[in-house]
């Protein structure tokens, strides 16, 4: 495999398709939860899968473009949360280095790494980035934001833990493991 630049044609296309998936899942697929007006955001599960397969730049831009399109399709962008989505994509993509998904490795070690990274990343994004930007841009009350961001953190981390892990596990099975061929006697 030649590696001229990290921004290959494949990553350009992956960003586009990733953003389209993020948009469709975030916009039209609402899985109701017990909390009123809150739906499970399964798009973060998909974004995580793209991060692990294609790396941080792809998932960051896919998250940014996808989330912007969702907000625009509703009428007005909420930049603080859009940026948080992009940061989440970036952080989860960094876990690609530790998970060798292309060779079909997704065992207990990888599952633990993936979930620790995603929980921390969701925490940084929703409790950290989104809250900080909401205070800077909208000067909102901290207590409201804390309630809001903790809910978002919990919901998104739970969704990613279930959807992301299952998808990556299934994806790893479709890859050929290194050294999986054995010489017959």
């Amino acid at each position, binding site marked *: 495999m030649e590696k001229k630049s990290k*921004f*290959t*044609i*494949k990553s*350009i*296309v*992956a*960003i*586009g*398709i*990733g*953003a*389209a*998936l993020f*948009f*469709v*899942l975030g*916009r*039209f*697929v609402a*899985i*109701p*939860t*017990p909390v009123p*007006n809150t739906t*499970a955001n*399964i798009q973060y*599960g*998909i974004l995580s*899968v793209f991060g692990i*397969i294609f790396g941080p730049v792809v998932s960051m*831009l896919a998250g940014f*473009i*996808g989330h912007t*399109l969702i907000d*625009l*399709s*509703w*009428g*007005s*962008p909420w*930049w603080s949360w859009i940026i948080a989505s992009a940061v989440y994509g970036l952080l989860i993509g960094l876990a690609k280095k530790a998970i060798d998904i292309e060779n079909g490795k997704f065992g207990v070690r990888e599952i633990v790494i993936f979930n620790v990274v995603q929980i921390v990343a969701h925490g940084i994004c929703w409790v950290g980035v989104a809250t900080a930007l909401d205070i800077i*841009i*909208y*000067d*909102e*009350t901290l*207590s*409201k934001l804390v*309630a*809001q961001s903790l809910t978002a953190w919990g919901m998104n981390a*739970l*969704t990613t833990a*279930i*959807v992301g892990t*299952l*998808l990556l596990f*299934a*994806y790893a099975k*479709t890859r050929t493991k290194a050294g999986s061929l054995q010489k017959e006697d």
Partner: protein
Amino acid sequence: MSATLSYIKKDSPIHRLTGSTKFIFFLIWSVAAMITYDTRVLVTMFLMGVIFFVMSGLKWKDIRFAVLFMTWLIVINLVALYAFAPEQGVGIYGTRHEIVHLFWRYSIVAEEFFYLFNFMMKYLAVIPVALLFILATNPSEFAASLNKIGVSYKVGYSVAIALRYIPDVQRDFHEISQAQQARGIDLSKKDKLTDRLKNSAAILFPLVLSSLQRIEVISNAMELRGFGKNKKRTWIVERPFKKCDYVAILVAVLMLAVSAGFMVINGGRYFNPFV
């Protein structure tokens, strides 16, 4: 799906502006609304937005759903803001004019309601312009506009691919989900939340695989045509800037200057009528 906002073809002064102009205008406008909390500036921006909207010749029915949805969002936000901190405005404006005491820690305080009004205006100042940007910009022009403001054309292409493949992905999702539902996989409220999430993975997995395949096909096709060989590229839908484009951008820049100027005059983001 009628609730989704998308481009509506028309002939109006707003539609005749290039996509780049509308994009730049929208970005500057949202920055101007983001930095300020000055009531006068926000109200002016909102009224100007409404005038632009009327100029575009778009109809109320085109935006009715979006407006109702945004109103709902704003109301929820306002209620939550008030419920969590009924005295936020007092802290901001430094005075307290109580009108009526309600119960416990809640009372109707002029400062708080002025703050909530400003919060609402902060949304309203951007909504008309954002709606115009969505409804009056040809999506094909979007990639060209991004490139024009200095974003790499490769990223512009990613956006174009996203817009192009949203309907395809949506159709894929729909087909897969119908097939899986026929096999008894349920996403509705009848199942437990964790089961619902697990079930969604059963729908998402074929979707991810078909998307990965799609990525393969598209990137091969682009590779074959030599995409990315040159540093620059031309766009079939790109239009040259005309006089009205420069005027529009000038208006947005002036608005930003006014917004920043009032921050200097007020000595902060807020306009305080209480002192």
